[in-house]
């Protein structure tokens, strides 16, 4: 968002934009919280302020801070390092998508298989072009982690379609 901020006296447009995005995002969270809390119905025994009281207290403060962030005059962000490589948003997005697929495939494929696919994909995203490194890593890391946790530490991990082989 603010990768190459330019120094402008009295503020920075990019930084103000970030503040607006933060303020709006937290106002949205506040709205969802209010909606979720409003459904909570329970008789409040005696002098208990009830199950809604505390969330409402937090939500009011959150709404107030969100509005103040929207109005806040932003500080100038630190200068970006001119020698640093430009950020690679595309790879970050692809990594997030790969991770989402990993989470989705974890149950049907099991830990070993889904992790193998994910590790291979992540290594390719990290520009590892030596196929034998990708192959060895994608096999050794998931299998090693699985055996360590399931056999040595007795922590069950999903087996999925390869259940009979593990």
């Amino acid at each position: 968002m603010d990768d190459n901020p330019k120094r402008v006296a009295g503020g920075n447009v990019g930084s103000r934009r970030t503040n607006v995005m933060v303020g709006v995002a937290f106002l949205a969270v506040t709205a969802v919280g209010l909606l979720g809390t409003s459904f909570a119905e329970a008789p409040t025994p005696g002098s208990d302020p009830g199950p809604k009281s505390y969330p409402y207290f937090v939500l009011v403060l959150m709404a107030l801070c969100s509005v103040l962030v929207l109005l806040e005059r932003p500080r100038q962000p630190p200068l970006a390092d001119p020698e640093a490589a430009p950020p690679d948003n595309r790879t970050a997005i692809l990594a997030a998508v790969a991770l989402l697929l990993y989470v989705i495939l974890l149950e049907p494929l099991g830990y070993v298989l889904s992790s193998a696919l994910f590790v291979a994909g992540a290594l390719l995203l990290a520009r590892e072009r030596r196929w034998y490194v990708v192959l060895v890593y994608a096999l050794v890391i998931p299998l090693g982690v699985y055996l360590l946790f399931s056999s040595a530490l007795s922590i069950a991990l999903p087996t999925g379609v390869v259940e009979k082989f593990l």
Partner: protein
Amino acid sequence: MMSDWASGLTAVLAPLPLLMLVVGVLAGVVIGALPGLTAVMGVAVLLPFTFALDPLPGMMLMVGIYTSAIYAGSIPAILIRVPGTPSSAAALLDGYPMTKQGHAGRALSLSLSSSVVGGLIGGVLLAIFAPLLASVALQVGQAEYFMIALFALTIIASISEGSLLKGLLSGLLGLLIAAVGTDPLVGTARMTLGVSELRAGFDFIPILIGLFGVAEALNQFRRRFEFEGTASTSRLGSFRIDRATRRRAWPGYAVGGPLGFLIGVLPGTGGEVGSFVSYNETRRLSKDKSQFGKGDPRGLAAAETGHNSAVPGTLAPTLTLGIPGNAVAAVMIGVLTVHGLRPGPALFEGQPELVYGIFWGFILVPLVVGIVGLLGIKLWGQLLRVPPELLWPTILALCTVGAFAIRNSFFDVLVMYVFGIVGFFMDRAKVPTTPLVIGLLVGPIAEQGFRRATILNQGSFSWIFDPVPFVLLVLCVVSMAVSLLRSRSTAATDYDNDDDVLAGATTDSTRDHGHEEVSSSDEKGGAIEPCQGSREED
């Protein structure tokens, strides 16, 4: 009391806890020495290894990782001017100039000895003061608990990265997430939005792993795993600390040890603030300030002693009140909660062997760090050759195990992923994540304090004007006001006052960690402190 100490020592000297301490130290050295891997991320990702262990060996693993990662973070700071963990930035102020002068070996030895001294001082002070604090904590009422939780959150929001308001928003989000699920007093479901898995609420461990493991991994992909060194690690010089260096370093030990611990006890601080304040005070108290920033052993010793002494300090509020001092302490609570234990004064009475075992662990771990450090000091530079692009997919595979294994729940893995994305965007928007984590953990304490104090006052909120809650309320307001005034005054001067040394620290720290910054705030005295932009994690 003495029997508690004896049983704690006996417990910690058993083979498994001792082995876990050593394993933790070795793992921590790797985590600390590799730029991009932080102590908090290390303990979060390696947390699942403790699930199969009893609480004490699990805590020893975490204590070992935390302490040695803090020590090892200074190795790349000294050798290549890139802090291994963000909190090691102070070590490069005098450590890297020593490397440039051909004394890298001596700087590494001094860093090791200072870490051992600082860790020992901090460990002993924790063992002395935590039981006293716990006995006071037993007298704390519900209203006080609520206000202490709010005060901790306010302090953390005030001194963490970005603006105060963003810190507060992050903390409030943590409080809100903690309130999702069944109400603790009357059992009504709240904010579940029809999702049945949310009736039991969020487990905080997948959220921690997402915020500190997954988010950082995505950041690494975005930054192409890059960091650049500026010095060769092949010519290290002598590792011997000569008598003159020892003599020059002792003021750093003397100031950094107690001061670092005191700073560490304050909520939200930890090693980073401890090291900078110790450095600053040692410099201020010295007659000859001319060599600071040019390879002065006093500076390196002060930064490292303060840094490592603050580590046990951060556990003091965690163990005595159940309120984590920083993000690492928050993750370490997970080791206990997995076994159904909750830190706080009751733990001292119910599990004295565990609590006193942890104290002994903090006293023993600097010695283990010293031994491991002496054996491996010539090899640590080689750790910098580990290709990070091979490391991060492995870390993500471990994150998945950590999130799933808590409750054998695929929903928790999804929670980890969602909070990884949330953490990534919070990082980009300069909204600190540590207040969220602290809010998440103090949320149940705060809500029960709020509700029960009101019930005890027959439905009235007048308890807020009782002496202790009112003083804490005033302190909350004062801390926020001070933070706002400081941010206004530094906003005007932040980017014009950096001296050369600090500019170097800023450049490299930013290059590696994306957004850390270190600023000097006092042109006349050269006072140095981490400003609001400094990253809050260890």
